[in-house]
């Protein structure tokens, strides 16, 4: 049985030998061109003049196109058709592509792109949420408001009210492989695009539209990405469309990869949020009501901002039963990069909001922050009377009560808390702090129709299996997990399964590999395809041996039928000789979900995934610098398809979440130009930032929902475990004030921010 084995990543051997190919590694035909965009350095304005003669004259340049030169309008938006490939008349952010250069080398294209004479008459730029609110610059006309009960009345009647504001910064994806795409023009106008994308089908649609071709004439392929994290869900569209448009115009293959600085300047990031909160608690520590106001900075175009902001609202309860709740969500349009999907897709911001409320209330009530949280947890599975979320979904699979207890026991919480307090009392410069964060994350696309997947499986007469599905591989190990599912269905070793590149010509009409859904959806589709072929083979062997099909057993690389034992290859050959089809498609759609977005009610999620983390830090009051001393994590991956890959997701997700909330700071200047556009100024976690002691374990247990082998999605949920580091920093900062003042630490809690908070404590 290959399922649940901790096997290495499918491409591990290729990666360690440098043989794995990314888009930029694919050999090009001799006459290929390289593309680069020319960018606006003005955040908002009217293009008065664009003189491209120096660009055209630059060495190696073959083609230069601005918006007016395109054969037809080219849109690269994933949603509202509001993102022209190249700026049309106006520029809407600093970094927006205005023209595209095609040259004989990557460097020649980049050099030429800087030679344009672009004159922009500036218009007032809206950069902050305050400016956007004041100007009424927003999507959807007004805020989206969901009410459960009367939150204001509940808060007014409560024993204790806490209120405040939490600023949450954005986050650059910093996939190590920058955005890249390659277009190979074919005969009769066909276009083959190879792209680093989480969403080949969307790339296919955008390219087909831009070229004026039916979708059937555009084929999009992706073998792997060097990291995605949501940043390649929609943000690769521009490159793919650009290479296809220029390939169509010139008849030559075209490739484009963003230089890292361009990648920072052009592409969207995680949405930064400001969350205003008011919450009422009883003296018993039970929450009575909460009112949130989410100010979401969406950037210049709609992109995926509406579902991101929705998901933030859907996670504003996190793990807690909240009798009355009001959430007001403002989706604000600004002259900055169009904020986009990023691991968690708004969920982390929603969760961080309620975790701040819990932390603040625990401080005000003088209760242990973990104790306060546990008092407010949803009813534990199996609950005789399940709670409902504010949006009306029954919480039937909640396990954070038991999981938290196990985590705290294993991490020796009570003793450490006391030891830290004693240690702090003897320190002048340093304070340690400890913080906890649980996560309950809803699994399914909230746009219900996206919860579908397809697969294509062939069995050859030598017993080898060709596997294809709609999911994309970005390092998360999806391909390996799905191959393990296929191998288990046929009872063959995983080595017999050949994983192949995601390809719109093999499996059409796919959803993005996003929302943590990759293995849930594609694993089921692959299982269905394999089961179909296996049933056909079993039927044939059963008729040969005068037995029933269910008496044919596929295991250990062999097929047992009656008294005969065949190798899988022999069984496949027999089926072929019996004129049995050994190729099948598989399809899956998630059952039981229904979501009314307008009313904010229904069951958007098939199930919930859980986890909890305890983080300890030490802070230096003289500099604001800090270290993570220890992190303990217990995470729920259901019955894991591959524990090694799942633990990798948890470790990586936690560190990425910590990065978001601590060191990763995006800074725009007053003119709206992003000043942190390289790793020299934008600090993602490095080797020294990881916790000195790092204990990560899976919380074992089958998913009560009928997922693939009862596993659970694990891509996004662990990112929110990083919130425990923000809570730990808050705890350490509070210790400098003797616990009198609540630190109200914003994120990212850079050393500067921590230092300022420490100064506030010391008054």
């Amino acid at each position, binding site marked *: 049985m290959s399922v649940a084995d901790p096997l*290495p990543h499918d491409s591990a051997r290729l990666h360690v030998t440098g043989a794995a190919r*990314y888009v930029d590694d694919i050999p090009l035909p001799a006459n290929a061109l390289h593309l680069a965009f020319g960018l606006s350095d003005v955040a908002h304005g009217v293009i008065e003049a664009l003189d491209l003669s120096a660009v055209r004259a630059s060495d190696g340049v073959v083609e230069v196109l601005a918006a007016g030169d395109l054969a037809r309008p080219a849109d690269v938006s994933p949603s509202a058709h509001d993102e022209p490939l190249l700026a049309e008349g106006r520029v809407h952010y600093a970094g927006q592509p205005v023209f595209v250069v095609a040259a004989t080398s990557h460097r020649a294209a980049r050099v030429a792109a800087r030679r344009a004479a672009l004159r922009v008459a500036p218009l007032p730029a809206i950069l902050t949420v305050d400016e956007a609110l004041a100007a009424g610059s927003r999507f959807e006309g007004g805020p989206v408001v969901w009410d459960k009960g009367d939150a204001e009345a509940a808060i007014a009647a409560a024993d204790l009210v806490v209120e405040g504001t939490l600023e949450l910064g954005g986050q650059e994806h910093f996939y190590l492989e920058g955005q890249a795409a390659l277009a190979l023009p074919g005969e009769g106008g066909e276009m083959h695009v190879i792209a680093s994308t989480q969403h080949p089908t969307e790339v296919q649609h955008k390219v087909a539209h831009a070229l004026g071709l039916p979708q059937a004439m555009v084929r999009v392929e992706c073998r792997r990405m*060097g990291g995605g994290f949501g940043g390649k869900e929609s943000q690769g569209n521009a490159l793919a469309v650009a290479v296809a448009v220029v390939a169509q115009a010139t008849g030559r293959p075209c490739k484009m990869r963003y230089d890292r600085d361009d990648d920072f300047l052009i592409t969207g990031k995680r949405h930064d949020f400001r969350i205003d909160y008011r919450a009422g608690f009883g003296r018993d520590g039970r929450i009575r009501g909460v009112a949130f106001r989410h100010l979401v900075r969406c950037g210049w175009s709609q992109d995926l901002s509406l579902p991101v902001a929705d998901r933030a609202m859907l996670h504003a309860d996190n793990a807690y039963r909240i009798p009355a709740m009001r959430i007001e969500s403002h989706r604000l349009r600004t002259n900055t990069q169009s904020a986009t999907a990023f691991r968690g897709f708004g969920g982390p911001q929603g969760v961080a909001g309620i975790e701040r409320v819990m932390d603040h209330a625990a401080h005000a009530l003088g209760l242990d922050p973990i104790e306060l949280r546990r008092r407010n947890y949803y009813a534990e599975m199996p609950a005789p009377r399940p709670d409902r979320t504010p949006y009306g979904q029954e919480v039937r699979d909640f396990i954070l009560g038991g999981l938290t207890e196990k985590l705290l026991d294993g991490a020796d919480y009570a003793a450490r808390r006391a030891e830290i307090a004693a240690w702090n009392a003897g320190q002048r410069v340093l304070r340690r702090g400890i913080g906890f964060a649980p996560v309950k994350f809803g699994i399914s696309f909230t746009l219900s129709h996206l919860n579908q997947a397809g697969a294509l499986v062939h069995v050859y007469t030598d017993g080898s299996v060709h596997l294809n599905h709609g999911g994309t591989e970005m390092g998360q190990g999806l391909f390996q997990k799905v191959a393990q599912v296929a191998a288990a269905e046929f009872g063959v070793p995983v080595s017999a399964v050949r994983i192949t590149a995601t390809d719109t010509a093999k499996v059409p009409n796919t959803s993005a590999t996003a929302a943590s859904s990759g293995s849930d959806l594609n694993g089921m589709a692959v299982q269905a395809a394999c089961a179909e072929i296996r049933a056909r083979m079993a039927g044939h062997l059963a008729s040969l041996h005068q037995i029933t099909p269910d008496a044919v057993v596929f295991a250990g690389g062999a097929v047992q039928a009656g008294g005969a034992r065949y190798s899988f290859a022999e069984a496949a050959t027999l089926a072929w000789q019996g004129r049995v089809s050994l190729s099948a498609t598989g399809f899956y759609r998630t059952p039981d979900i229904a979501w009314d977005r307008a009313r904010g009610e229904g069951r958007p999620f098939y199930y919930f995934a859980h986890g909890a983390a305890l983080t300890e830090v030490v802070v230096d009051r003289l500099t604001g610098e800090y270290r993570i001393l220890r992190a303990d994590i217990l995470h729920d991956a259901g019955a894991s398809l591959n524990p090694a890959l799942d633990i*990798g997701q948890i470790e*990586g997700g936690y*560190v990425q979440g910590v990065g978001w909330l601590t060191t990763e700071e995006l800074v725009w200047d007053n003119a709206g130009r992003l000043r942190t556009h390289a790793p*020299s100024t934008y600090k*993602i976690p490095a080797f020294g930032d990881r916790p000195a002691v790092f204990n990560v374990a899976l919380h074992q247990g089958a998913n009560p929902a009928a997922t693939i082998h009862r596993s659970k999605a694990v891509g996004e949920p662990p990112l929110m475990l990083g919130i425990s580091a923000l809570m730990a920093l808050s705890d350490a900062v509070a210790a400098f004030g003797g616990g009198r003042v609540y630190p109200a630490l914003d994120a990212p809690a850079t050393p500067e921010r921590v230092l300022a908070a420490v100064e506030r404590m010391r008054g």
Partner: protein
Amino acid sequence: MAQVSMTVNGKAVKRSVPDTTLLSEFLREHLRLTGTHVGCDTSQCGACVVHVDGRAVKSCTMLAAGADGASVVTIEGLAKDGALHPMQTAFNDNHGLQCGFCTPGMIMSGVDMVARYKAEGRELTEAAIRHELEGNICRCTGYHNIVKSIQDAAARM
């Protein structure tokens, strides 16, 4: 144009390239050794690390002409006769990778580090591994399994 001669993975190569050609470009574009990756273009992420005369170098920081006459080893030159280098085996066995893009640079840095510490008779502690790898960025793994991989390889080398 510069005439550049060097030994790459044991083979003598000679090319005429523009003066400004970076070693990373030379390896990738001219020799088609694409296992050396370019992650940041500015010498910070470490995905492009190769060995030049036995020392780890970020190949996007060095001109190809600057490596004239040198012996260069890339990730493709590490395995011998199909047998993986112990560092490669360790990354495979310890799940020291996810998307794989940083992996060649990590492995080349790791090999250099272990060899240096062994030559100098110094103990390669976990803290030392972390310090040595400050110039290599990974966005996927959280680094835990990369440190484990290098510790494991150090024991095998």
